[in-house]
């Protein structure tokens, strides 16, 4: 039991080590990092699916405004589920038609759920919990109980968020950014503020933030204090580095969002005016408020979190790919050190760029200039990370497993997302593009075919470690190709619409803005003639793209079916992994038994080399694991240098 030996210099009162845990303690209130990781991952996947479903409704309303959702009556009439659907969605949609009110709820909740309840729990919490302690060769997280609390707090926040659809007011309606003053005042005169979707949203965020706080304290402490013998900082896999940095972002950037949530809560519940300027009117009447607050304050507090948050969304993707790509190209990660320093720089700078989301608020030229400079600066480390991964492909003998397919698609997709971000960094261009579909296209390219593809890659990659079986390759490819196609059908046209002036929050897809939308170009022509092949009458103007995007969403949805099947069927029916290290990878998680038991390793892992020793010249096998002193032989504890004792200050 590995490093535990070090701590036996004092007696403990742990009398409960060696008996079997009951089902509840083993799978529900578990303190085992792997179980918690899987809990996080599955909850995150479910929320991703739910958020996806909300998006489908939105896309329908954009492409076919005023027309009833297909299958609305059928779904409503299913016993049980129909009731849930009606209470949640149906009651806002007379006759199955999405109206502005419902669209706003869908939009706000789609954003919130995808970001805070989908990608972060899966990409960060899920993967870091499952993989990181194994990779650094320890038995568990530093604070296993806090880890459990972290998951359950997150779970409560998820339940509250979901339940907010069912309260009288319906869920929150003011965008995932929840900008005040709108969000401080909408539908505030209710009989009971505690039964208000907005209140629930704010409280759920407070729970969510507490959960990520506990999680990040845990991850950082574990990485710092529990690395195995010989696992020096520069022998740590890039995965752990990236997650370590993400934890710092969560730790230090989330509290200002908590402040924003609490102040908005105070505005709504106690009637304060933190974010409400003097003289604010609504419906031609002065509100009964003191004023004296500032909407800008909200945006500062929000974006102080939300810009680092976008790196919380993207760094786990890099973390995963830094493992997947070397293992599948049989080549070392190119520029490991540069990537580590790049990621550190990225993490640091990400705190200093937030107001590039606020160019249009009239911040003042000096501030805009400052934020413009830092924003351009931060794209340098982003490019370093991407370049590192790209060059890692060079000269490799690539195995196109499903995870590698997703990984290779990530690279150009993230590239598009990142490059379209650059123009936004400049104030004078952003004046035209802010709050248009261009911005939506930009960040979805980064998070959807970017991060989400990387998360899929991670699932295919580590699935054999968790279950002992591989996922099916054919279904994997059937998952990949429609996903790639669907993603691009949805997001590429957004750039064109955005530059044509399409605002990001039109629930009817711009139906009432004929003038801006009647423009046509080669792309709309292509769209129109493409759909005419199928006998669909799609107008040759920017509206037509709405149809293309909605069809793309449908393709994407179909593409997920093989994945869902694959995910569940492979647990029992997948091909056996064959060994503890089915991909012939080099990092420590593959040295543990499969699936790893509580306590992880059956020997004391000792690390004697760097994380990516693939295709070492002169060696017969094309990988040299971190824990082997010579091929096939585990390193002895004496092989690792004793960690230096730091001076007492």
């Amino acid at each position, binding site marked *: *039991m590995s490093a*535990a030996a*070090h*701590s036996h210099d*004092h*007696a*403990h*009162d742990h009398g409960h*080590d060696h008996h079997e845990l009951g089902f509840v303690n083993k799978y529900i209130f578990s303190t085992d990092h792997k179980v918690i990781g899987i809990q996080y991952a599955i909850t995150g996947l479910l929320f991703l699916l739910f958020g996806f479903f909300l998006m489908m409704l939105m896309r329908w309303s954009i492409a076919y405004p005023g027309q009833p959702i297909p299958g609305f009556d059928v779904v409503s009439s299913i016993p049980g589920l129909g009731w849930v659907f009606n209470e949640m969605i149906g*009651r806002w949609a*007379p*006759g199955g*038609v999405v109206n502005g009110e419902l669209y706003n709820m869908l939009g706000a909740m789609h954003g919130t759920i995808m970001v805070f309840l989908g990608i972060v729990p899966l990409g960060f919490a899920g993967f870091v919990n499952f993989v990181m302690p194994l990779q650094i060769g*320890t*038995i568990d997280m*530093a604070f296993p109980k806090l880890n459990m609390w972290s998951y359950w707090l997150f779970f409560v926040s998820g339940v509250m968020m979901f339940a907010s659809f*069912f309260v*009288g007011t319906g869920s929150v309606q003011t965008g995932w950014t929840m900008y005040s003053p709108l969000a401080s005042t909408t539908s505030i*005169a*209710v*009989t*009971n503020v505690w039964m208000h979707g907005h209140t629930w949203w704010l409280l759920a965020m407070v729970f969510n933030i507490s959960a990520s*706080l506990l999680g*990040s*304290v845990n991850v*950082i*402490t574990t990485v*710092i*204090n*529990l690395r195995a013998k010989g696992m020096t900082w520069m022998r740590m896999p890039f995965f752990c580095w990236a997650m370590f940095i993400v934890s710092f972002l969560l730790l*230090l*950037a*989330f*509290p*200002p969002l*908590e*402040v924003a949530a*609490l*102040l908005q809560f*105070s505005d709504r519940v*106690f*009637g*304060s*005016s*933190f974010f409400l300027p003097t003289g604010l009117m609504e419906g031609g*009447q002065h509100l*009964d*408020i*003191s*004023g*004296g*607050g*500032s909407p800008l304050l909200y945006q500062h*507090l929000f974006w102080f979190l939300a810009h680092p948050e976008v790196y919380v969304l993207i760094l786990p993707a890099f973390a995963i790919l830094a493992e997947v790509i070397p293992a599948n190209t049989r080549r070392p990660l190119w520029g490991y050190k540069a990537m580590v320093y790049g990621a550190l720089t990225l993490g640091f700078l990400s705190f200093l760029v937030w107001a590039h989301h606020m160019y249009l608020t009239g911040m003042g030229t000096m501030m805009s200039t400052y934020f413009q400079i830092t924003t351009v600066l931060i794209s340098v480390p982003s490019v370093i990370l991407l370049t590192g991964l790209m060059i890692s492909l060079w000269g490799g003998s690539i195995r196109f497993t499903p995870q590698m397919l997703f990984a290779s698609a990530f690279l150009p997709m993230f590239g598009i997302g990142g490059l379209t971000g650059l123009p936004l960094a400049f104030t004078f261009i952003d004046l035209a593009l802010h709050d248009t579909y261009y911005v939506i296209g930009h960040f979805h390219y980064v998070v959807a075919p970017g991060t989400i593809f990387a998360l899929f890659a991670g699932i295919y990659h580590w699935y054999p470690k968790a279950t002992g079986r591989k996922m099916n390759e054919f279904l994997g490819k059937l998952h990949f190709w429609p996903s790639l196609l669907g993603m691009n059908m949805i997001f590429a046209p957004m750039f064109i619409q955005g530059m044509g002036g399409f605002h990001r929050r039109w629930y009817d897809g711009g139906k009432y803005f004929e003038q801006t939308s009647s423009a046509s170009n080669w792309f709309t022509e292509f769209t129109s003639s493409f759909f005419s092949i199928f006998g669909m009458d799609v107008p040759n103007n920017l509206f037509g793209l709405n149809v293309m995007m909605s069809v793309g969403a449908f393709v994407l949805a179909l593409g997920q079916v093989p994945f869902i099947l694959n995910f569940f069927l492979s647990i029992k029916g997948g091909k056996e992994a064959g060994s503890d290290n089915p991909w012939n990878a080099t990092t420590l998680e593959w040295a543990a038994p499969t699936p790893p038991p509580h306590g992880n390793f059956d020997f004391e892992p000792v690390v004697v080399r760097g994380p990516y020793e693939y295709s070492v010249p002169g060696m017969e096998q094309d990988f040299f694991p971190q824990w082997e002193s010579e091929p096939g032989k585990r390193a002895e504890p004496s092989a690792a240098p*004793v*960690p*230096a*004792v*730091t001076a*007492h200050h």
Partner: protein
Amino acid sequence: MDIPYTVSARPDTGLYNAKVGVWLFLASEVMLFGGLFSAYIFLRVGADYPWPVHELNVTMGFINTLVLIGSSVTVLLAWASIKLRKFTAYKVYMAITIACALTFMVIKSFEYRSKFTHYSVTMTDGTILTGHLPHGFDIEFGEVNELTLTVAGKTASIDANPVSYVLPYIKGTAPSFKTEAGEDIQLDSTSFAKLADEARAKAREKQKAEGLKETPNWSIKLKAASPITFSVPPSKLLAKPALDAKSISFRDGTTVEGKIINDKMTIEVDGVDLRGTPEKEKSLAWNEHYLGSAWKNFFIHQRDEAIAEFSKKYDDGKGGLSRDPNKSATHQKEQFYLHIHSPKPESHEASNAAHGAEVHAPKEGHDAGHASHHPEVQLERKDVQFYSNFTPKLNSYYAIYFTLTGLHGLHVIAGALVLAYFLIFDGRRLRENPEHMANRIEVGGLFWHFVDLVWIFLFPLLYLL
């Protein structure tokens, strides 16, 4: 399975896990309070009213500061006592620490309470009157013969619920009502539930008959057996009623027709703030049926005296002033903030004597028993622009004050609970593994010092500067 380094330090970092953990947690706390303090800066820089200085009870804040410092010392002494294996001393010091936390919270709650009962009324010309509202502030709306309830067709937050949101505001006892079907009922939860069910059934029938896409709202009219008078605080209505409102809507959507009988606000004035009034001598406050000319003269006298004093103090010897009177917040307050502690203006001689000692804002915490010390004024609603007790609603200063001290208070409570847990439930660890216990106290103590550290900034920022 033992996690390594829970007690002893890892050699290369020199730290045990909990210590790394608590410092990370504190770093996050620094960001939390950092966010709040930057909100403070933002609000203060942007404030469009004189930022209150010395307006809270400085004595209480001062005592609380000492209490927290004391507890910071005792928690350290508790840790030292464990290190010396003096377990009784440890327990005593811990108990003192927790007692300090309780004292802090008790004092804080007195401060809060005095704010909740004290009101500030901004009149339409910017003059602010502060004082107590002996009867709260209700609008009396009478001659109501009929309630119109609206039962919502879909689940919605505004849905008729008269039992909770209308009946409580009836003056006297509620009369019986006659339904549209001609039935006489006493309105209570059972009878209303029946009415609402019938209404929904009818709404659904109508939906079917007319092929509507959604269930319509359905209104129910209830005739009162005798005219009703409501006495309701404006905050319980859906919208502020107009001055000559002929109907009002309650928070559940119930609408009644009638007329306003009395909407005067009775306030026992203890302060007049004219800093926001463009023409101080024509302030609404000096209306004869409000404070009247006696107080106005008193004010003018005080102002002139303050000006004279200021000119004397900052005379630069060349016939000018060494300080801009418009930029001295203190001087503005001396001139334009009038304290009132007697029902009638005192003679000027007496006020001269009192004046020197009373440069600063009124002390809070007069209770209702002393009400007769203040002139009672009946404000007409048309002259009132905004009113609130001294809560977050009043202005951004009180908003940030309550948020900062409230969150700080939560931290005090949380810290005290953790320390109490160590003291009460961790006896076995203390005996068997005092080193581990010392680590725990160290970690708990770090948090406690942090709470103290936050207060060190809060006290001057909110009370003094």
